[in-house]
């Protein structure tokens, strides 16, 4: 399948699957391990991919949340993410996609401006998270956040849906973008 659709498969019982897309293998692996260490009542499945589209020969469960990881130090990762975005169905952007920008701590190494990523996230109406994945504590906190988001996107939290979460997260972001 060349395009990822959010609801084309039935969900697994008590299972939540997240897909991390990014060029930084090491960081993604570490983030995945941090997420799996988290205490969670549902079963977690983490899939990693360098870019989309994913090979169609693999039998994979329904993906509940896609996180695109952009490294602010390399333009290549941004381009990779932008190209992968074409292979995601529009229905995913109703709260099941999130952007994660890493490397903002070392301002001197940043080749991509923060605003570029913010504009990207604004275009796709998805939440943008900043986290330095190289630092273990921040990584652990971000893993916690992602686990909670994943639970909501998978429908494991009653009375909160992905769309709900999206509108909750957007309120704090939009005012700043109006100033741009």
């Amino acid at each position, binding site marked *: 399948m*060349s395009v990822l659709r959010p*609801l084309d498969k039935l*969900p697994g*019982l*008590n*299972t939540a699957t997240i897909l991390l897309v990014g060029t930084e*293998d090491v960081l993604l*692996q570490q983030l*995945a391990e941090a997420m*799996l260490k*988290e*205490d*969670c*009542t*549902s*079963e*977690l*499945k*983490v*899939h*990693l*991919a*360098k*870019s*989309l*589209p*994913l*090979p169609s020969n*693999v039998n*994979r469960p329904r993906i509940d949340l896609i996180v695109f990881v952009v490294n602010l130090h390399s333009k290549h990762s941004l381009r990779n993410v932008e*190209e992968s975005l074409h292979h995601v169905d529009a*229905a995913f952007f109703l709260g099941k996609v999130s952007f994660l920008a890493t490397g903002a701590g070392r301002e001197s190494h940043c080749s991509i401006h923060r605003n570029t990523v913010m504009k990207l996230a604004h275009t796709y*109406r998805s939440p943008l998270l900043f986290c330095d994945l190289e630092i273990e504590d921040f990584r652990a906190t971000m893993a916690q956040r992602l686990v909670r988001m994943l639970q909501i996107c*998978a*429908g*494991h*939290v*009653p*009375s909160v*849906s*992905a*769309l709900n979460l999206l*509108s909750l997260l*957007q309120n704090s972001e939009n005012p700043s973008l109006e100033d741009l």
Partner: protein
Amino acid sequence: METQSEEQAAAEAADSRGEGEPLQVAGAQAARPEDRMALLLRVRAQTKQQLLEYKSMVDANEEKTPEQIMQEKQIEVKIEELEKEIEEAKIAFEMKKLALDSVLMDNMKQILSLNKSVMKSQQETRDLEDKLLDVRKKRLQLKQASERKLLEIQTEKNKQKDDLGSMENSGKIKTIQQNLEMEIQITTVIQHVFQNLILGSKANWAEDSALKETVLQLEKNLTMIQ
């Protein structure tokens, strides 16, 4: 582009933090049915939520998307309008929830106060029952005491009767009785002697009052005294 993608973690950790693993530890047997119940309830809630999501997607897909190609600005404006509508709907919902919650609060408070009064009256009932129990116990004790006393009285009486009976059979009384009899016989003999003396004197005893009294007195039968 298409060949580049490597899916690294297809066999990725299905690291089940779920309830499966801890349950299989031997010795956690007592917690198993409760954990299963919890799991079932959780899965039920999840399924409900997921069903809701699918339903809403189906409803959304039935909406007709605008076919004409609009300028980007117009699309942005439209999107923002829709978002505003969503926000207003959410705010209205929250207000309704708050209103309902306040009513609920009142009910809860009433229920709490009723519970308190119920507990108080139950406490009072228990106290009264305790008192009743005490009084009954005392009555029982008194009854038993009176029983004992009556029993004592009875035994005392029986003892006295026995004593009397035994006394009568003792030898002392017999000798006294014998003496008494002998005395009476002697006195009777003396009576007869005096009588015969007076009669033998051939005096007219009826005329003299003193003699009359003496004779009559001698007539008294002493055996009656026994």
